């Protein structure tokens, strides 16, 4: 009897296998006579909503304190301890999510997809460091970002890495930013989150690839200070731009630079601009010629870059789920007679029309075409500005931090022998 029952079960299961008739009450609800009490389905709550506002409060507090420590108090020790606090709170406690670097993607998606509602944490984590940087320089990098703190902990023996390598590797953050924005805005993927090296450490849970990536960064970080910050961080590009036009910025000397050269080797990130004497000041004719060349070169590079990228817009788009589905419908991965992929199964059971899938994929491809033009134009613009910078020279007498690259970590401050001037009418010391 049990055998036939089992066989019957097998037959029924087979026939019902592909009918996704979920939730149908095939068997009636039992009525218990023995006084059995049905247990409740346990549904544990997520993190309390109000704690998101706590995160925002801590972020703003940390930004304010670090900015004060860098600009007013000029204390390397204070910045160091703040960065440890940031590592503990934003890193180990919050497990590094949501972070300012990733918030670029949330904002990109929110700007281009009206149905995506950004959370307030993501928005504030994007805007607040930028605003503080516009006024005080990259104090976020110094003492608030847990990535920076993580890398600072392991930079025991920072080496100078040479101008050429520095320049070449410095291109990567711009590429990363461009691709991250493109993929986030089209709703394809959050690249920055996917390739986040340190979140695996904070969660105590990582795939092998992520673990290797983190190990590589931390080990190389012993000899190359802040490798992620200098050569990978996409948010750093935005902070770089904001810091260049910041109202106040950390300065090595509290008053005047006396060119004592004591701070020359104090920066682990080569972010100090040395004094430059102009040998032969260029005549107006050469400068005018250079200006014309640049005015022609930059738009040309933008156009060439955009056009080149638009040629590869389709391969770039093929990681998008909707595009992949459409391609699978046209060209099934598995031959006839074999079981279909889950995507095709799900598509069929959802009862969607094929035409709808194709329309959605076509929209994504169109978005990628436009996005690729913009991405390529952005890269082209970067190269144009890069060439322009090489063509111009700036006269400089003092040792100043490079406003774009300086992380405001305040290490160089301890090397400067100049004392703060006595308080007179002029209280403000501006870089």
């Amino acid at each position, binding site marked *: 009897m*049990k055998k036939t029952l089992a066989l019957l079960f097998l037959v029924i299961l087979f026939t019902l296998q592909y009918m996704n008739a979920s939730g149908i009450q095939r068997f009636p609800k039992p009525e218990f006579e023995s006084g059995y009490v049905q247990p409740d389905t346990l549904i544990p709550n997520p993190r309390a909503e109000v704690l998101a506002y706590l995160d925002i409060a801590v972020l703003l507090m940390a930004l304010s304190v670090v900015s004060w420590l860098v600009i007013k108090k000029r204390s390397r020790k204070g910045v160091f301890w703040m960065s440890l606090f940031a590592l503990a709170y934003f890193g180990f406690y919050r497990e590094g999510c949501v972070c300012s670097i990733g918030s670029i993607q949330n904002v990109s998606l929110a700007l281009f997809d009206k149905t995506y509602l950004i959370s307030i944490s993501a928005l504030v984590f994007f805007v607040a460091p930028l605003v503080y940087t516009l006024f005080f320089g990259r104090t976020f990098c110094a003492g608030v970002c847990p990535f920076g703190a993580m890398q600072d902990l392991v930079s025991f023996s920072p080496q100078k890495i040479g101008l050429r390598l520095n320049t070449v590797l410095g291109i990567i953050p711009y590429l990363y930013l461009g691709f991250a924005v493109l993929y986030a805005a089209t709703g394809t993927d959050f690249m920055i*989150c996917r390739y986040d090296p340190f979140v695996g450490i904070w969660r105590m849970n990582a795939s092998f690839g992520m673990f290797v990536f983190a190990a590589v960064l931390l080990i190389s970080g012993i000899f190359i200070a802040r490798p992620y910050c200098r050569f990978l961080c996409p948010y750093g590009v935005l902070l770089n731009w904001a810091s260049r036009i910041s109202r106040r910025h950390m300065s090595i000397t509290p008053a005047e630079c006396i060119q004592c050269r004591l701070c020359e080797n104090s920066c682990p990130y080569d972010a100090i601009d040395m004094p430059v004497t102009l040998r032969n000041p260029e005549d107006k004719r050469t400068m005018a010629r250079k200006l014309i060349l640049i005015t022609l070169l930059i738009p040309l590079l933008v156009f060439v870059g955009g056009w080149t990228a638009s040629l590869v817009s389709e391969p770039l788009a093929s990681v998008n789920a909707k595009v992949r589905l459409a391609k699978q419908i046209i060209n099934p991965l598995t031959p006839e007679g074999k079981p279909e992929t889950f995507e095709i199964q799900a598509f069929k059971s959802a009862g969607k029309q094929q035409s709808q899938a194709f329309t959605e994929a076509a929209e994504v491809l169109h978005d990628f075409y436009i996005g690729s033009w913009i991405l390529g134009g952005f890269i082209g613009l970067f190269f144009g500005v890069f060439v322009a910078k090489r063509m111009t020279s700036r006269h400089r007498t003092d040792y100043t931090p490079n406003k774009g690259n300086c992380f405001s970590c305040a290490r160089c401050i301890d090397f400067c022998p100049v004392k703060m001037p006595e308080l007179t009418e002029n209280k403000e010391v501006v870089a």
Partner: protein
Amino acid sequence: MAKQNRREFLNTLCRGTILTGLAAASGVLVFRSMAGGHCEIGTSCNSCKKSGSCDLPEAMLFRQTVWQLDPAKCIHCGRCAENCVMSPSAVKVVHVYAMCGYCDLCGGYLKPDTQTISTAAENQLCPTSAIKRKFVEDPFYEYTIDEPLCIGCAKCAKGCDAFGNGSLQMQVRHDRCVNCNECAIARHCPADAFSRVPADKPYLLQGIEPKDESKQKS
């Protein structure tokens, strides 16, 4: 002195422009989150399914959201177990007792090719033996999930769905989920069953009566 003023002026101008731009963009995004207004499927709320968790027009005022999967769309492919950033996965099977038939021949507990109906390991669908079967009264058996053992492979949910009442449903468990910015499982779900739901109604279970939701474990 004149040059310094010019540069400072340009810097201030740029700064002002960027600040204005940031303020404008933030304003737009904030307004969009606040403008509940009317409810149209797919516009105001991401993948709105009118699952009973919507209080529009005041609804989405910067609601904190968490990830959840919709059992109505789930095809029990088993990718939840492989793709979560946590191991074992934050997605586990949940037993909605209210829907369960308490059958002796349970489609979610027993393998399809079982010869006998017993708690023997070779008969169990679950690869980690996370479903416990207990006799209640004739002919009813109670099935409970031992959550720490569950890996989220959905084999039991598939069986229950195919031959049963569908009371075993896959759900994101919020005592385990770290609420990633982009859910790694959502990226790989073939049925597009994952979406963000308000954090105060974080589960999309079928068959749970509204009053039962008050019995929540923090």
